[in-house]
């Protein structure tokens, strides 16, 4: 006979904890005896696997984890959990609790006790025991032999307290995350790069604002949990939802009054970068057969820089390009044949107009404007700028093909490299994502053999 440990079961617990509470609730009974008894009850798990895993699996089956309070999203294979360095809350450890949530590097604080998660036990000063170490650890906080008195004192049985409320709250959030569908939070050990999904990583200024603007509920709940969105290391967007997210990005219409402000921000940001970077770096587009997409990875700074040069080429009178180019561009967008194909961001139009950007007066088909939080505006602006660059580039291509006789265009096109012949490709269906410290550009194309290397920005020096 053995105890399952259901008396210490809590929603949202990890498998590591399932195993620990099994050990704790069986006091000083010998591990070999326990294993032998589990082997009788669950012979199917004891044929080829290691004893430890089998016990864990057997327990997992026996604890009815299908209920909503134990979302499967957080149940990792015991093996991967075992390999990870355990992170835990000292108070939770005392009451024989550990959640998979604590293994996420972006969770730094215990949502139950508001104390920092640690990798070491404050009582015995050793690392929190791994699976293998659990059975032999003799510590009142992290070990196996906890006394009844101790468990009572730390409220390990206290189901009516706020523990359950908090756990239920967390469960709701996790269910919310599951239902959000587009977002999968992954643990630090998980490698999602080979799945074809887009991976958002930390260290981009844009990242938190993207989360905030796209997933307002998610961010508010994470904040409620004490998670700083800036600390989220990685966010995976599933392949099938990439397009949806792209639409989401495009739907953001900014009501910022920008003219001067935009120039200031852009100049401030870019002037420094211009010194560091040159446009000699090529935008290397790679074709992904399985995706049917062309992609190019550049840093935010590089893209801004490139866009900046291109922009200057249009509107800066000191450069070779003249304001007439910008006017032409503007007119083309509003009235020309490319109007239906190009979705120029309003903010760019206003920049090009050189006047205060009052979008309410701007005639556009898209009437659903979106007021962004203050701290998001700047980042959205950056997206807009890059989109502007792409639209400009797209429009140039369109002009080159459609209005070859245009003198302004010819002047400009002379600056483009002779190798730039992107025939038959549709630059307008692009999606822009940050990836790692860079941005990922995705272009749809029907042709897989197009050569986009040396795309041409090389020549705009």
């Amino acid at each position, binding site marked *: *006979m053995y105890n399952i440990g259901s*008396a210490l079961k809590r929603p949202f617990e990890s498998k590591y904890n399932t195993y620990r509470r099994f050990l704790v609730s069986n006091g*000083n009974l*010998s591990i070999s*005896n326990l294993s032998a008894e589990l082997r009788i009850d669950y012979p199917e798990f004891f044929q080829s696997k290691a004893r430890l895993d089998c016990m864990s699996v057997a327990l997992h089956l026996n604890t009815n984890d299908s209920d909503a309070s134990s979302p499967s999203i957080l149940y990792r294979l015991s093996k991967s959990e075992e390999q990870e360095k355990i992170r835990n809350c000292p108070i939770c450890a005392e009451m024989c609790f550990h959640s998979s949530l604590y293994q996420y590097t972006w969770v730094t604080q215990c949502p139950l006790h508001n104390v920092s998660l640690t990798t070491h036990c404050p009582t015995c000063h050793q690392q929190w025991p791994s699976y293998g170490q659990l059975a032999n650890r003799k510590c009142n906080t992290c070990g196996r032999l906890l006394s009844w008195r101790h468990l009572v004192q730390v409220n390990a049985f206290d189901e009516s307290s706020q523990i359950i409320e908090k756990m239920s709250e967390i469960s709701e959030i996790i269910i919310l995350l599951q239902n959000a569908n587009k977002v999968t939070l992954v643990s630090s050990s998980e490698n999602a790069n080979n799945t074809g999904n887009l991976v958002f990583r930390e260290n981009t200024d844009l990242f938190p604002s993207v989360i905030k603007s796209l997933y307002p509920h998610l961010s508010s709940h994470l904040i409620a949990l004490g998670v700083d969105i800036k600390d989220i290391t990685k966010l995976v967007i599933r392949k099938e939802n990439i397009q949806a997210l792209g639409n989401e990005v495009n739907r953001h219409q900014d009501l910022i009054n920008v003219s001067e402000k935009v120039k200031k921000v852009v100049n401030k940001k870019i002037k420094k970068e211009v010194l560091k970077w040159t446009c000699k770096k090529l935008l290397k587009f790679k074709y992904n057969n399985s995706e049917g997409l062309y992609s190019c990875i550049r840093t935010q700074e590089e893209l801004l820089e490139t866009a900046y040069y291109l922009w200057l080429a249009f509107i800066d009178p000191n450069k070779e390009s003249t304001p007439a180019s910008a006017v032409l561009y503007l007119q083309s967008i509003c009235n020309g044949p490319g109007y239906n194909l190009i979705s120029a961001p309003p903010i760019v139009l206003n920049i090009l107009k050189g006047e205060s950007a009052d979008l309410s007066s701007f005639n556009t088909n898209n009437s659903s404007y979106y007021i962004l939080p203050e701290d998001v505006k700047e980042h959205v602006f950056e997206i807009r700028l890059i989109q502007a660059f792409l639209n400009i580039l797209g429009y140039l291509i369109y002009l080159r093909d459609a209005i070859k006789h245009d003198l302004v265009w010819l002047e400009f096109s002379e600056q483009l490299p002779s190798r730039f012949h992107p025939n038959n490709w549709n630059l307008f269906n692009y999606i822009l994502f940050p990836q790692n410290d860079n941005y990922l550009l995705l272009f749809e194309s029907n042709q897989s053999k197009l050569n986009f290397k040396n795309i041409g920005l090389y020549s705009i020096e």
Partner: protein
Amino acid sequence: MMNTIDVHLDNATEFFIMTPMIKSLHDTIKQWTWCGLTGGVIVGEARCGKSIGVRSLKESIQSRAGEDIPIFRISIGNRDVKTIRSVYLRIANKLGFKIKKSSTSDEMAFLINMHLVEAAISNSSHQVILIIDEAQYMTVDQLSVFAEIYNDLIDAHCNCTVFFVANESQFEPLAKELIKNENTYLRERFFNHIHAFYGIRNQKELKSCLKRYDAYVLHHASHKTATEYYCPKLYESGWRLSDVAATMWSIYHETCMKPLKHQSWNMSQFTRTTNILLMDYLEKYEIELNDEILEGLIMRSIEASGIHPNIHAFVGRHV
């Protein structure tokens, strides 16, 4: 013929009839549990059927909400050294734990508590029932084990109800100890409520028990009852074993109850008597059965069942 039946009347571990007394015991336990009592005592004469009565409660009883409340039965043995550890060891072993020889009371208490809490949380009222049989063998110190288990489970937000089953005659010394002030903590928890369990006390109860034989199926395939199986011709003619209740009670009352000053006919003696009557005598004499023969058969069955204590006669001859 005997080999073809599914249940043998003389197999005490198999044979069970729901008597009015056992029904009353079940009702009392259910009532105590539903009322939230922390414990109670079931006392009765030795061999009157108490243990069979509590054993027949199955693995659980139903709560008010219709949920199963787990029951654990532990039978205490009489030992020359009566320690607290021995009680923990007995409980832990009975629950199925493989206890190390070096295990302390605390370590065993931990396992037992965990096991009971796990069982208790299976129902929404977080209740679990412990039935301690042969409680008369325990000392007051040993009884404190259950007070501790009770307290520990309360700490874990679970309710433990402990019912003790004891022989009336041997329970008296312990009861006297429990009356003392220093044992109030035990008395108030577990011994304030007493259910007196008796054997058969009147003809009506006897008839009810005999009716159970008439309805007791021995052969599942043919649905043959005990009466039908052993007295097929009588059964076919409409005769039933319960018809002999008046004669049987009259003979028992006159020959045993009065002279031996029995309060009731204990169940083990009753089943022995009835089994002999049915299996050995009625089967043979069913064709020629009349009142006179019946009386004779009943008397011989009672004698054969050992109600009259031969040991008394033996002792008397040698005094």
